[in-house]
């Protein structure tokens, strides 16, 4: 009876909507306790928070990689491009244009950089020449990869591996990339370079991004909207610019204290904010 919204016809509707999801690992460990967020079409949205807050779990719930780790979404729902995600395999999702770049790069270390990139085109059915063209496109964004195309990915630098991982995701012609901790273990200059490319891809290739980051400072400069996750709950969200000005964000995530050091006892804990998006 319910009419499914026509996918991608309506540019105003968000490309990704997460409604109040709960995730349990191994049937006992409750990791997400009701997370809701949405990513507008063509947007860059940041998901911020400390280690263990649940950023990666949120991304894996969306890309449906949770099953491989015995995790399960037990409540709530996720919609990508107007379609329920829960019934789709990771393979189906990549085919529909939602791909995750995992934390820690996860390149195929014994494959050459070029083979890594080509493996990202696994789900495509539009022929070798289109894939070749896209390979050149990826090289135009990451000229450094072209130089190293024949080296084993495991022997390239951390920055090059991150580029390989993003390039590999691009080869699937995604509408949306879930990018997990791209800054991890990279020199500040390189982090800046990677984020510049993310911005370019967003503008030129119209790829939407959901960005999980610990590096709040950089993430809020490139994202348009941000969510802050704390032990499995969204505690704060807003336009990136306003989050940057928020006193608590400044203190806990950006490391600029307002007036001297405060004792941890005085820290205001955010109460759970109920969200009624579902």
């Amino acid at each position, binding site marked *: 009876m319910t009419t499914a919204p026509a996918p991608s016809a309506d540019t105003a509707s968000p490309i990704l909507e997460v409604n109040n999801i709960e995730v349990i690992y191994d049937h006992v460990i409750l990791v997400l306790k009701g997370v809701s967020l949405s990513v507008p079409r063509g947007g860059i949205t940041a998901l911020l928070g400390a280690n263990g807050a649940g950023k990666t779990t949120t991304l894996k719930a969306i890309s449906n990689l949770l099953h491989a780790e015995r995790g399960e979404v037990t409540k709530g729902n996720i919609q990508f491009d107007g379609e329920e995600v829960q019934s789709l395999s990771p393979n189906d999702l990549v085919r529909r244009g939602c791909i995750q770049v995992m934390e820690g790069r996860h390149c195929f*270390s014994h*494959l050459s950089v070029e083979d*890594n990139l080509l493996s990202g085109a696994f789900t495509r059915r539009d022929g070798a020449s289109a894939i070749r063209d896209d390979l050149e496109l990826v090289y135009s964004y990451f000229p450094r990869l072209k130089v190293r195309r024949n080296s084993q990915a495991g022997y390239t630098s951390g920055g090059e591996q991150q580029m390989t991982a993003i390039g590999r995701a691009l080869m699937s012609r995604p509408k949306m990339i879930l990018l997990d901790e791209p800054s991890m273990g990279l020199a500040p200059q390189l982090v800046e370079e990677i984020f510049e490319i993310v911005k370019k891809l967003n503008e030129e290739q119209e790829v939407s991004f959901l960005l999980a980051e610990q590096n709040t400072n950089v993430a809020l400069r490139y994202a348009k909207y941000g969510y802050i996750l704390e032990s499995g709950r969204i505690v704060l969200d807003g336009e990136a610019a306003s989050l940057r000005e928020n006193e608590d964000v400044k203190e806990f995530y950006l490391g600029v204290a307002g007036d001297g050091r405060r004792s941890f006892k005085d820290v205001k804990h955010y109460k759970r904010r109920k969200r009624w998006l579902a």
Partner: protein
Amino acid sequence: MELLNSILVKPFADMIAAPDFLLQVLWEGTVSGVLYALIALGFVLIFKSSRIFNFAQGIMVVFAALTLVGLHQNGVPALLAVPLTLVVMYVLAYGIERVVLRPLVNQPDIILFMATIGITLFLIGFGELIFGGENKRMITEELMIPTGSFEFEPFGGFVLMEQKDIVAVGGAILLVVALLIFLNKSKMGRAIRALGDDHQAALSVGISLSTIWVLVWFIAGVIALVTGIAWGARAGVSFALEVIAYKALPVLMLGGLESVSGAIIGGLAIGILEKLFEIYWGQPLLGGNTETWFAYVLALTVLLFRPQGLFGEKIIERV
């Protein structure tokens, strides 16, 4: 002194004294080595792409050979029986993926290993039920495999090569070359290698586990059929054939569980070395029959010094 002489000097003196006989021994060793290598290759492919140690590889050899012979006995022309057997192996691969692997995905390795023991028992029972348990003759002539032999007279001596052995070696080499091209050049081959490298990442780029697993088990089935024909032509088709799978274990220890080239080189090395040892050391000194254990001793010795095997995949670690 006497003993040292017979261990360190006499065997080599014998080799030099009768080079034609040495050549014959080397050839025999190569033939069995090639077959060990093939079986090990089946193991390696499945292990690389799914981390499953496939205990059923040996029985798959028997099952493939039995199916081929059984189909022929039931009136199917030999040359049609081969593609039909391939279809059966495909159905088997598909069934294993559906019924065994898919429900057990993400379970600990040991559970999947136990599952392959289950597959082994199932195939033994199923094979006996349908084709009977008695010894069968491989349909060598019907498959147009020549059965004559070539004789050479190098060094004024005499070497005999059976034509079916030459076909077996040639077929194995062709199969391996085709496989290597497939793995390195095709999209599916790339996906198999990717899956072997990083399971999670392969999932994340949309590589479909079930497609790859069916494919890999089918390739293992094709390898099993080729091995079954070659080995069956020498020793007949029976469930005793399964023991050559146990010969693949030391090959794997020697070559490493993840290395295609390791399986090939390890197989050849074990095939040749065990024959040499049997003829020049085993029979004169130990009363023969050393082939049953020599491979294991060799593999264990290698393990002492290189736990990842001679060609085990190097773990790339960046510091």
